[in-house]
């Protein structure tokens, strides 16, 4: 039933072949098709702009006040591309292999190879738009290294790479808005997907300014709505990131794949109190120059400068000598947790380790370090009140990225015809763990280069404009959304939306965070439905639905997280192996590394909603490895 539609033929020729075989729509007819793009992050903005350039009519939506503020803006470190500008042996194949291995052999070969293949075009495209990447004195582009790779292939714009790439995509989008071909709907939140005869044909949105609930019809729908990391409440994601769009689509029939593959980033500023609303990432690029350590002695609460060299445990360098401080994220995070569980953590509550720059400062001088990471050091100081030039940063892992998402085929179309899913919202390219600087690459690959080719394969089968909002399905969906809003507003209970979100977040962090086991997941699965029940009986949402109401917005998102969390834990419990970011304590090697079970779990788990949250039905897409040999993932 799940056909990934990976083209046949040698790996390196699949994409060219697919492009050749893909359908074309002539320019005159393209204008007759309308495409809805939900999301204006890297994936959404690049897709909306590129499709509009081709001639399709585009309606683009985002919940922020401007498309330029999508969460992609926050990405710091960089974007990978197999340019081999450093002549250090990089190639498409190597980027492909690093990504497959980094994902612990749980991603599709065909997709990942295509990603590596188009990566170089992304850089060309962005430079042509005027993205100010870092350069060397000779005027050529500069590179840095990121985790999980032994070559320097990461392009960056100071510590604001996501911002610059998004502003580039937003400028392309602005150009198309000016041409009149893209209609932009900011401060609009998608609350429902509309399907007609099983095809995705539109969405229902709420205008967050006026409260007006509106129907929008199109010939197909693209969800580019980002990840679901905020199910944990505390994460490095922006406050508004949510699962609503993909979850609504899931409830309309789209399969949700591998929700348990969540990424915990090793270098974030530790939690400082229960008022905390989000966690702040300290870019992975810092590990180019920073050394991670914890005291060797338990409960050693001396000031870091008082702890002599031989009483420090540079545990990443010790355990993974060939990658050292640049070991991949899942591995580095677990190592930090291990040190803290062992009683060797530092800072409040003992949940922290040091990221130390003293050696780099000694070697290159403070000025060089300031040039490389100044804005991150400043941010660290604002948040913690500590100066990281003088004493090591305290860091701890935090939820950062979600590899799982809606299931899509090689055309980026979900099992629901017409519904396409791009960027972090889909599941396709990172397997069980994403390497640093690869999400920006994927978002832009999907939007600039993949969807403009593949979308026609669906659209040619459709008569343009055949479905309008007069269709009964739109009326029904509108009524559903209004009824839900009405219900939420009339609970008038005692607890705030945030209090539920925090409680849910803590529960999934404890039971389905960096380490998971059967019993813990089972207890979470008992508690989640109870919390959801309480929410629907006891949440308090002041105000009305007819105007700006931020509590109502949050309530809708938290209600969806409360349903989604159950699927997250079910998937984690069903996957009786450890791989990448999914670490099941029952499945580890003697030295505490993740132990995969290739014989039984070399598949993507795509879940279908059945109406009963506790009994989704599982569809397996067996992963075929034609090129790489499934190996134990070693960074030693």
């Amino acid at each position, binding site marked *: 039933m799940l056909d990934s539609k990976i083209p046949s033929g040698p790996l390196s020729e699949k994409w060219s072949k697919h492009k050749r075989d893909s359908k074309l729509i002539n320019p005159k007819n393209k204008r007759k098709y309308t495409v809805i793009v939900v999301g204006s992050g890297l994936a959404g903005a690049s897709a909306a702009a590129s499709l509009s350039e081709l001639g399709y009519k585009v309606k683009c939506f985002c919940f922020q006040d401007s498309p330029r503020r999508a969460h992609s803006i926050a990405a710091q470190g960089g974007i990978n591309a197999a340019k081999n500008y450093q002549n250090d042996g990089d190639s498409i194949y190597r980027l492909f292999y690093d990504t497959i291995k980094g994902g612990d052999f749980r991603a599709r070969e065909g997709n990942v190879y295509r990603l590596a293949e188009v990566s170089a075009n992304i850089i*060309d*495209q962005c430079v042509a738009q*005027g993205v100010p990447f870092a350069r060397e004195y000779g005027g050529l582009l500069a590179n840095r290294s990121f985790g999980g790779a032994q070559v320097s292939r990461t392009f960056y714009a100071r510590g*604001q790479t996501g911002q610059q790439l998004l502003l580039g995509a937003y400028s392309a989008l602005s*150009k198309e808005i000016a041409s009149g071909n893209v209609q932009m709907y900011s401060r609009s939140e998608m609350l429902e997907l509309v399907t007609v005869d099983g095809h995705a044909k539109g969405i229902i949105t709420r205008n967050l300014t006026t409260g007006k609930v509106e129907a929008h019809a199109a010939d197909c729908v693209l969800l580019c709505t980002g990840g679901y990391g905020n199910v944990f409440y505390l994460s490095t994601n922006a*406050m508004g990131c949510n699962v609503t769009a993909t979850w609504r689509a899931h409830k309309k029939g789209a399969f949700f794949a591998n929700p348990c593959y969540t990424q915990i980033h090793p270098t974030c500023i530790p939690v400082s109190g229960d008022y905390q609303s989000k966690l702040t990432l300290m870019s992975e690029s810092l590990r180019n120059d920073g050394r991670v350590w914890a005291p060797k002695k338990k409960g050693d609460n001396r000031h870091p400068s008082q702890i002599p060299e031989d009483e420090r445990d540079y545990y990443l360098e010790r355990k993974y000598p060939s990658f050292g401080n640049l070991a991949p994220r899942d591995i580095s995070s677990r190592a930090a947790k291990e040190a803290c569980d062992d009683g060797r953590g530092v800072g409040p509550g003992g949940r922290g380790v040091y990221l130390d720059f003293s050696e780099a400062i000694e070697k290159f001088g403070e000025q060089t370090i300031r040039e490389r990471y100044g804005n991150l050091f400043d941010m660290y100081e604002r948040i913690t009140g500590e100066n990281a030039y003088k004493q090591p940063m305290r860091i701890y892992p935090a939820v950062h990225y979600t590899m799982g998402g809606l299931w899509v085929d090689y055309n980026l179309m979900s099992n629901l015809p017409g519904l396409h899913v791009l960027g972090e919202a889909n599941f396709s390219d990172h397997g069980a763990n994403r390497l640093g600087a690869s999400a920006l690459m994927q978002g832009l690959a999907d939007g600039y280069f993949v969807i403009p080719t593949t979308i026609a394969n669906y659209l040619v089968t459709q008569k343009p404009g055949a479905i309008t909002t007069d269709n009964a399905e739109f009326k029904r969906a509108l009524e559903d959304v209004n009824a839900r809003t009405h219900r939420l507003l009339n609970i008038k209970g005692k607890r*705030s939306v945030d209090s539920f979100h925090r409680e849910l977040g803590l529960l999934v962090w404890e039971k389905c965070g960096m380490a998971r086991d059967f019993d813990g997941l089972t207890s979470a699965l008992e508690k989640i439905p109870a919390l959801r029940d309480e929410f629907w009986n006891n949440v308090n949402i002041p105000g009305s639905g007819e105007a700006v109401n931020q509590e109502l917005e949050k309530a809708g998102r938290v209600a969806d997280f409360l349903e989604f969390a159950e699927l997250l834990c079910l998937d984690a419990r069903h996957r009786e192996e450890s791989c990448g970011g999914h670490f099941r304590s029952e499945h580890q090697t003697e030295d505490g590394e993740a132990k995969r079970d290739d014989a039984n779990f070399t598949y993507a788990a795509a879940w279908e909603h059945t109406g009963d949250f506790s009994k989704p039905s599982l569809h397996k897409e067996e992963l075929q490895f034609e090129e790489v040999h499934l190996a134990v993932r070693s960074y030693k």
Partner: protein
Amino acid sequence: MNLNLHLKVWRQASPNAKGSFQDIEARDIPDHASFLEMMDIVNERLIADGKEPVAFDHDCREGICGMCSMVINGRPHGPERATTTCQLHMRKFRNGDTIWIEPFRARAFPVMKDLMVDRSAFDRIMAAGGFVSVRTGAPQDANALPIGKEVADAAMDAAACIGCGACVASCKNASAMLFVSAKIGQLNALPQGQPEKHRRTLGMVRQMDKEGFGNCTNQYECEAACPKDVSRTWIASMNKDFAVASGREALLASARERSEGD
């Protein structure tokens, strides 16, 4: 340490409603909390008391998305240099302080509710020329166009703008010159931006005027308020680019008239 604060918060139910300051006692606020976390605590308490929470814009809470706004004690984004509201922390305040909290105010930024304003004028200015007209496709190899480090760095300085609008809110004329000049300046500085330089400058400056932003009278409050340290020198280069572009436009127009007269 925890703080007790007296807040004076602008409350306004809707764009056309009359607004006023509301007194709110914020007790027991942890000094490690961020300013917006302080607002979260205040809102939780308002909700518990059956009152409407204070509406304010925010998203990333890392100082990069430009969504948070607020004028704090008369200054957009508050007292700290080069710091957005979301990055301001309560340890910068003292126990017993009175804190005035207002929306960004400007004719072109109408208040929507409480501390939220409508900044869509910025998007319309961007659509009037804030781009390089390249289609997605296969442009030349990125390294085929070397760009000196100084030029790239300068473009990046301008590109650091987060589009928050603090420059407008800080200016007594509600001028958007710092924002617009940074946007024009980034592209006009780069070789990729040259072919459309004049068009871009004219388009964006005229849209800015149309949106109802005021004129720059060289007070440079904008530079002081900018959370990303965008330099006022961009304004001077924009003025220069604008003079050249409009002079060129006038010349072309009269040349056209002449040729039409033939």
